[in-house]
């Protein structure tokens, strides 16, 4: 079976973005939603800036019981999944439950709940051995986070393949890529797929502090995320979720669905180099891009927009720029490239899906979101990064990429289904 797969619904929770309209308004205005951390006192930490989401679970329709049992990242995923299903207009009851699946990505999963739990169990870090008298029944759910896709499956009534993809910072691309594979091969007809992460908690802030991966622009939080800028000094940690409804193309057409895009190609490679380091040449990401373009039967020169990983670390932005040049040749210089992390930060495993959402909205509006905070040139980053201001631009084909710890490099090509020669 080799079926074509389209995206027909989306739900987004990102910094400054309760839903897709607000998300697009923020991106197209070039506004940033990064701020000094408010969830805890960040003053002991090296990096004190983050992209926080103002999220009220009760207002989002979650019951007190759901709020008690679900980690924050799960709450995001469930809310985004509901929104995606509503946005797609799909009648899930028209499908056999076992033909509906879920693929959810997350890098650090229930980190928030784990840390809260740890503080209680260890008497704020004083004890090593933990008493077992008053264990929360949810502790196990936080250690083994596959309850996250399970909650989404219960929400949408999925009884087909349910997966949690946890590839670190490419999880949000890889989970959607996985969903595409399952529909293509015929294991499911509808997939609710996306990713979530809520890592703004002391242990995660501290572990990125330790390797100096995050920014130190603590005095200027709104301008702290500076992808491709000569003064960039690390990424801005963020939280968020984006979830999509994916369907087989012909079924979507039959029900007259609004189609955001077809997932024309997806590929992942590993650099087998270093758990956190990147070689400057971008070879493996370039290979993933070439493979994804090949599957989509898209020439480099048909790529209208590159939604970059653009994390704002010194090494990433150089690595990625090289990968675009290797894979697209001269076209890399002629097609707009931008990083929305400049506005919403880097939500680890979620961000790949958040960036797919941004790519779909760019296609819907024929507007390329900008790279905010881009003012100082870096000779290693010499492409057209759409600095600071969104640009009207015919956008029929988008390349979106991700890069993460463990060496994962992923690329996805989004196309208009009517434009692709089948």
């Amino acid at each position, binding site marked *: 079976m080799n079926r074509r797969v389209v995206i027909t619904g989306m739900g987004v929770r990102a910094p400054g973005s309760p839903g897709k309209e607000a998300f697009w308004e923020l991106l197209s205005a070039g506004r940033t939603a990064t701020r000094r951390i408010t969830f805890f006192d960040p003053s002991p930490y090296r990096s004190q800036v983050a992209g926080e989401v103002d999220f009220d679970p009760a207002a989002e329709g979650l019951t007190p019981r759901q709020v008690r049992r679900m980690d924050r990242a799960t709450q995001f995923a469930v809310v985004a999944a509901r929104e995606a299903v509503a946005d797609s207009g799909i009648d899930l009851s028209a499908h056999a439950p076992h033909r509906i699946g879920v693929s959810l990505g997350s890098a650090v999963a229930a980190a928030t709940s784990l840390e809260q739990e740890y503080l209680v169990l260890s008497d704020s870090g004083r004890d090593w051995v933990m008493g077992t008298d008053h264990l929360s029944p949810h502790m196990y759910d936080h250690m083994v986070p596959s309850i996250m896709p399970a909650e989404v499956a219960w929400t949408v009534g999925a009884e087909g393949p349910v997966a949690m993809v946890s590839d670190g910072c490419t999880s949000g691309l890889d989970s959607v890529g996985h969903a595409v594979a399952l529909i293509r091969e015929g294991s499911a007809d509808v997939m609710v797929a996306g990713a979530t992460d809520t890592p703004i908690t002391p242990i995660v802030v501290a572990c*990125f502090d*330790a390797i100096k991966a995050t920014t130190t622009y603590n005095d200027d939080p709104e301008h702290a995320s500076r992808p491709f800028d000569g003064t960039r000094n690390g990424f801005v940690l963020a939280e968020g979720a984006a979830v999509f409804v994916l369907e087989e193309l012909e079924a979507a057409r039959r029900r007259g669905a609004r189609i955001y895009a077809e997932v024309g190609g997806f590929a*992942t490679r590993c650099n*087998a180099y270093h758990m956190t380091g990147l070689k400057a040449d971008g070879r493996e990401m370039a290979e993933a891009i070439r493979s994804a373009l090949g599957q989509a039967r898209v020439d480099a020169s048909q790529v209208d927009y590159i939604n970059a990983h653009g994390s704002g670390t010194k090494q990433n932005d150089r690595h990625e720029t090289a990968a675009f040049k290797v894979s697209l040749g001269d076209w890399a210089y002629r097609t707009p490239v931008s990083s929305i992390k400049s506005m919403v930060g880097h939500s680890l495993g979620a961000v790949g899906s958040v960036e797919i959402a941004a790519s779909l909205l760019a296609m819907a509006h024929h507007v390329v979101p900008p790279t905010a905070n881009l003012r100082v040139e870096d000779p290693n980053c010499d492409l057209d990064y759409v600095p600071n201001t969104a640009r009207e631009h015919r956008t029929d084909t988008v390349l979106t990429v991700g890069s993460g710890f463990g060496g994962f490099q992923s690329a996805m090509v989004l196309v208009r289904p009517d434009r692709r020669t089948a």
Partner: protein
Amino acid sequence: MSVITGLGVVAPNGFGVKEFWAAALAGRSGIGVLDRFDASASPARLAGLVRLETERLLPSRLLTQTDLSTRLALIAGECALEDAEVDLADFTDYDLGVVTANASGGFDFTHREFKKLWSRGPEHVSVYESFAWFYAVNTGQLSIRHGMRGPSLALVAEQAGGLDALGQARRTVRDGVPLVVCGGVDSAFDPWGWASHLAGGRVSLDPDPATAYRPFDVRACGYLPGEGGALMILEDPAAAAARGARVYGEVAGYACGFDPAPDSGRPPALRRTIELALADAGVEPGQVDVVFADALGLPDADLAEAQALCAVFGERGVPVTAPKTLTGRLLSGGGPLDTVAALMSIQEDVVPPTFGTAVVPGEYGLDLVLGEPRRARVDTALVLARGRWGFNSAVVVRAVQNGS
């Protein structure tokens, strides 16, 4: 189609496939009293423990940056590659993939870093914490250690994830990658991990290692958690034949499905998952020679599994076994380790018994292999795994004539 050409086992009852298989047949158990910290106040202390000196098996550079679970995964990976007698230099780097399942990440490692953060301050947190903890760590470290740059993935589905990794690896081979390292390894027996296991509410409180975990028994009272697992080498059959590889069997079928929401009143997904996996393999129920059961060890779950098996195979329609009573349940490692046992059953035409279980309720309708190994022709085996919250996965492995 894809074939298994190498087995790497790090199980509580054996390092390497030979030792593990001998233990599975002889009833040598890896269940012991948890002694890595003072667990004397804990209501349960039995677990399947891997007693390996990882310090002697890995370079010190890797020891400093890895949790025990990742060390075991690296050892299992090396063991599987050695068993496959494969020279990776014969492959181009994008032709090698890694798919692992994981359930608890680098839990012991991260517990230590939480402790440092909260007792000493953020500047004491390890530079390795950011990547020793997360669920992709085993895939990433295996990829780096062996120069594998092809399509790779990490999956989480509690106890079912390991079989999903085999299913995904098969998909990867089908998509044109000639060799994939796949499987799962887990460990979380630091004090916090142990408390979390107990918080799950299903761990047996029986203090006798011989009876604490006895699935399908009238007195089944929970499971024992274990650590370790298995990684294996999955290859494109043509590539394996071209290099003259020994083939343990093929992954002939795979399926997964999810149980309905708890209060829906709809039937569980295990039966359908089994049927889909058999259909995927092109196998009729009557052609299945043995089932390696999930065997949770709680009466409700045991009954549900027995009912699914009876529905597909008929009452006492197929031999069923659960060698995992000797290792405990290994989270992501469980399905792959059972797959190793299934492949060895195929090699040697013998089914390992379910040690510990004595009296199976008649209404289960199971032909559970008890007491001692059972000689039987085994060409096709079904391996089942269920993950908490509703995950069901099934793999069909089948004999392949070497050289054909």
